[in-house]
């Protein structure tokens, strides 16, 4: 069996369909592992992983840390708001200092687009991109696709709409790449101001009417409105956004079919999705969280396998 074709996981763009299938297959075994009474395997006993978070994160960092610990790796955590970055140290210096402590894999979240790619050209460790600015968030896309496959059996030919703040979303871009690679039809839906100008060049259709988008889709991936990334006003008011693009039970009841609802979290309850929808059985939001650990275990395991001992 061939391993991963890529030396790092920088984005979905850098891997291929076989890689995704290998990651899914491995993740399904890890999902069984994390449901055992003892949820740990010893594979990565002699591997050290640094989680470098230059941008705030709770769930992604916890998910990575748990995945690493389930694989028995040694883990060190670093977050920018309590570090020398504030004292003016460059990215390469910060990372090289950490690597001098013999770290094998770096999981990095960074506010700048392409930070992972840049780092991979300058350091020897394996890099996993845990989100770079508004660019990519590959493990989120993988766990989303894995969750859809688990729920619907396959992704080929399925209609998937990504709703909300596409402009600021790295989840949207990675999702578009991975879902298209696996044969899904992808549309985006949201206020025109939050849809990137050239998104059609990716083969994605834009739908401005939420009801039409819901009518068309099998799966709706609802994104969070990222207020913290908005330097100007992109829509008149949160209330108006909710009325036009928020998912509620009434809108879903009108569909005459049951669609799958996803959300990468954290949820702004009552803004992009109401509580009754988020907690309904057609929402697979908590499955996504569970699958996140399994997918991250698979990615780390498959990359670690390339670090030979001799």
């Amino acid at each position, binding site marked *: 069996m061939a391993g991963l074709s890529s030396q790092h996981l920088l984005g979905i763009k850098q891997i291929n369909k076989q890689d995704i299938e290998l990651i899914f*297959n491995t993740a399904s075994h890890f999902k069984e592992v994390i449901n055992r009474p003892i*949820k740990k395997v010893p594979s990565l006993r002699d591997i050290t992983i640094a989680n470098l978070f230059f941008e705030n994160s709770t769930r992604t960092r916890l998910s990575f840390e748990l995945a690493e610990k389930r694989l028995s790796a040694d883990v060190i955590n670093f977050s920018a708001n309590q570090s020398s970055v504030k004292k003016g140290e460059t990215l390469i210096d910060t990372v090289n200092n950490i690597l001098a402590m013999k770290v094998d894999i770096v999981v990095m979240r960074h506010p700048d687009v392409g930070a992972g790619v840049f780092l991979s050209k300058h350091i020897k460790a394996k890099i996993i991109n845990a989100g770079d600015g508004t660019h990519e968030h590959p493990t989120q896309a993988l766990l989303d696709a894995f969750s859809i496959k688990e729920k619907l059996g396959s992704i080929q030919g399925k209609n998937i709409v990504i709703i909300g703040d596409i402009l600021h979303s790295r989840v949207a871009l990675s999702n578009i790449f991975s879902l298209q690679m696996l044969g899904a039809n992808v549309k985006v839906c949201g206020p025109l101001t939050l849809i990137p100008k050239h998104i059609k060049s990716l083969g994605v259709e834009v739908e401005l009417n939420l009801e039409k988008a819901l009518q068309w889709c099998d799966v709706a991936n609802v994104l969070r409105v990222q207020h913290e990334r908005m330097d100007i006003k992109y829509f008149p008011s949160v209330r108006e956004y909710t009325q036009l693009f928020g998912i509620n039970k009434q809108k879903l009841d009108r569909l005459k079919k049951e669609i799958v609802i996803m959300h990468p979290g954290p949820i702004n309850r009552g803004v992009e999705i109401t509580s009754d929808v988020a907690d309904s059985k057609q929402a697979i939001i908590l499955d996504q969280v569970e699958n996140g650990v399994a997918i991250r275990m698979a990615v780390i395991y498959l990359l670690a396998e390339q670090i030979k001992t001799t």
Partner: protein
Amino acid sequence: MAKKKLLNSNAIAIILQRLACQLIENHNDFKNTVLIGLQPRGVFLAKRLAVILERDYHIKDLKSGQLDITFFRDDFRRRGESLEANKTTIDFIVEDKKVVFIDDVLFSGRSVRAALTAIQSFGRPSAIELLVLIDRRFSRDLPIQPNYKGCQVDAINQEKVIVQWQEQQKTDAVYIEN
């Protein structure tokens, strides 16, 4: 490449019956015993034995499962090519149970060592035994010996022992290849 048949389907059928009887001698009604086939190749043997025990010896409520050891192997990052994991199905707790590991060929003993660690994720068994169809003597890297063996083979290291199962290759047979 020379290939010599060691066992044909008749010989294997007789051996399976004997192994089933030996298991009954030690485990009576199997109330407190579970059979665990080691993935990938031990699963066929475990299923066969379970069928014989249930059909010919009327053992009721036999518990059996399959265990994959990929993530517990000691040659991770040391192999040339990567190994794909297989399914683990153990729908019961092995705490205080007698566990019988079942595999087709015992060679270096390293798979069994990995299985001894892996099974601990499902509880602490009261005892663990090992049943193999073929015991390759003189090739062990670790101090591991089977409790039940179908046939002992003195093969040198370059030689390969190949077990074929009806479920996969239409007929049961064991070959030695050099």
